[in-house]
């Protein structure tokens, strides 16, 4: 009885079409995170731009995306209508979890977005610049606590890279992993950790309001509107970005891959998507084809090196 009432309310109010889904996008993470938001933004943009009439998002959370990836690779072989969102975090998670299914088992299509890492301290911190931080780190690495996301994730990798570039033993980094950006941010604001490291977007509004001081960002270029040097400008030869990509199932024909790539490219250049990038504060780092494959291979080997140096991967 309840269902009929409900159904009529829903149907009456929304008149949603119950048509078949053209694309199913897997977000290999729980709702709310970056991949989920990417998948849901893709869904909205694809439908709005008419690239696909009906797009479904499927959340398969767990273990830095490796659980979703494994499920995707085994179930979507040869399926040209299934996509999965992924990114740099997945590269690290595959290595630390020794995941049996890797990015080689799917068909990476294109890199969509990127976000620089931001290194911040609370406004009251005695550390005024990235040089102060490096000096403190050199003096006593254990006393500098880094608050960021999960162990082995991009935040942790970036912290390890900074220590290494500064000539400090990366295994001596006192990295405190938090469940998510929110929890880490609270610990930074409460001055429970010395320095915070996470995606720029996580800290943006705090930086603008002056409660956090931005010491540096990790990209090749400065973040527009941000008043801080890149790590390279500060004399540390590192550039890291937390990028996100979209991949398709394994075993696709060249035509199928080309068709999906064309759809994704159309999406990435569409007005809706560009607008989404702006509201979300994501950088457009679109890259597809061979250029993307090469970049991906480079990222994977670089990440493996770092994780070994931090001591997370043997």
């Amino acid at each position: 009885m309840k269902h009929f009432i409900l159904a009529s309310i829903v149907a009456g109010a929304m008149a949603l079409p119950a048509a078949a889904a053209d694309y199913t996008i897997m977000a290999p993470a729980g709702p709310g995170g970056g991949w989920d938001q990417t998948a849901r933004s893709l869904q909205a943009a694809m439908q709005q731009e008419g690239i696909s009439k009906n797009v479904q998002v499927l959340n398969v959370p767990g273990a830095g995306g490796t659980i979703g990836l494994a499920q995707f690779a085994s179930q979507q072989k040869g399926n040209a209508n299934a996509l999965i969102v992924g990114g740099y975090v997945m590269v690290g998670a595959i290595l630390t979890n020794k995941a049996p299914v890797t990015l080689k088992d799917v068909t990476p299509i294109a890199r969509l977005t990127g976000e620089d890492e931001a290194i911040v301290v609370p406004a009251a911190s005695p550390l005024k610049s990235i040089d102060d931080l490096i000096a403190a780190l050199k003096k006593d690495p254990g006393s500098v606590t880094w608050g960021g996301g999960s162990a082995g994730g991009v935040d942790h990798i970036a912290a390890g890279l900074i220590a290494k570039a500064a000539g400090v033993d990366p295994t001596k980094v006192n990295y405190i992993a938090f469940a998510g950006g929110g929890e880490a941010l609270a610990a930074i604001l409460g001055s429970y950790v010395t320095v915070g490291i996470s995606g720029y977007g996580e800290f943006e509004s705090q930086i603008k309001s002056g409660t956090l001081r931005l010491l540096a960002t990790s990209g090749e270029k400065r973040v527009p509107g941000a008043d801080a040097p890149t790590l390279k400008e500060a004399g540390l030869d590192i550039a890291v970005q937390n990028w996100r990509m979209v991949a398709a199932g394994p075993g696709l024909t060249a035509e199928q891959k080309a068709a999906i790539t064309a759809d994704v490219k159309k999406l990435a250049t569409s007005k809706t998507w560009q607008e989404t990038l702006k509201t979300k504060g994501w950088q457009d780092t679109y890259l597809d084809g061979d250029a993307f494959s090469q970049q991906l291979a480079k990222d994977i080997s670089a990440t493996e090196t770092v994780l070994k140096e931090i001591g997370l991967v043997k």
Partner: protein
Amino acid sequence: MSTFEFLLQGLMTAAQPMNLLYALIGVTLGTAVGVLPGIGPALTVALLLPVTYRLDPAGSLIMFAGIYYGGMYGGSTTSILLNTPGESASIVTALEGNKMARAGRGGPALATAAIGSFVAGLIATIGLAFIAPLVVKLALVFGPREYFALMVLAFVTVSSAFGDSTLRGLTSLFIGLAFSLVGIDQLTGQTRLAFGVPDLLDGIEVTTMAVAMFAIGETLFIAAQGDKGPDKVEAVKGSVWMNAADWARSWKPWLRGTFIGFPIGAMPAGGAEIGTFLSYATEKKLSKHPEEFGHGAIEGVAGPEAANNASAAGTLVPLLTLGLPTTATAAIMLAGFQQYGLQPGPLLFATNPQLVWGLIASLLIANFMLLVLNLPLVGLWVRLLTIPKPWLYAGILLFATLGTIGANPSVFELGMLLTFGLLGYLMRVFGYPIAPVVVGLILGPLAEQQLRRALAISQGDFTVLFTSPIAAGLLTVAFLALAVPLILRARGRGEVLSQMAADED
């Protein structure tokens, strides 16, 4: 304009007939998806958020508020009627609520939950409007060591759900703690007890465990009694509504639950379920009828339900004042706000007063709609229990598995549901309490991580755990809660010596 005028203006907008309808639709949708066991508010909001995009900003904000409160409330109904908690925050509700429903008092249980949620939502939303900046300062004082102390306190309170045997209660708790070890250790990235199974890397999902232990374990247990039990539950004994005594016993727990739940919800790592545990323990300690706890005490429904809803509003405090999403639900809401051109953060109240007050007004309206929707339905819901047992339990299993499949359509997850269902059944057969297992699963990792974070920050100095005033205060309360009953028992040993000799555990 003053804050009060902003709020008034927001309320005027929200109270337009069309917007009221949107609020009602939002609350209905939120409740409908939220009742599914295993699908918590986060997924509910994620699924339904796109629906709101079709409306104008005011309408969509209002519908969104409805979905949020509806999703938070949805789990209570199934907890009370079917002993199937929809999400971790309504586990405690099932303890007393279902006992009440079994005794023909499902009506009052649902009513006290609905009214308690309304009262808590009202007070907490007003709190959000006027004292948010203050509360958030308090919340930020909590660092790892303070959270660790809070978890210790929460652990002590679990003992109030132990039932009649300390041995079996402790065993249940440690079985839960053992399960909580499964998965990737968040602080070092190493896997524990996953045995190479990828599905175990992220640990055991609390909702899967809760649904299996409560709904499936219970179904198996009832079925195994054969024809011994009564064929039907007597759905209504006495009035469907709360009587004078129910009111008298409910109003204080509502208020206490609100004051426990709101600040804990506002803490970045507090979590709605911690507030419900603390509220339950408080009510049991303060109740004039402690003997009724475990057999259907209305205070045990009223307090935790209020705490649950108050913490839902509490979550919005760091979100709106700091732009800090402290739960998955809040992270999705953040994405939703961006749709309205609203960038939560320290400057929000200054730069976007119309929208903020519009949202707060919407929450007040949604909270009211929740009551409008749920109170008249109480009579209908209670009738569910009059369905003959075979069809009732077949339906319960349908919805229990639907939630799990919807949240994560994997065969492995269903396998876990079956395994834990059998475990829940066996534990019932041997008289082990169920709730401590789930509580251990929730609290174990939180306590461990906060302890290790605190120690890593202090570089191994254990004294930091006691040197902050808040941590020391919380630990003292925990110690007293543990020690005082023991001392009292020791004093009265003369009279009860014979009883203790007979059953010292």
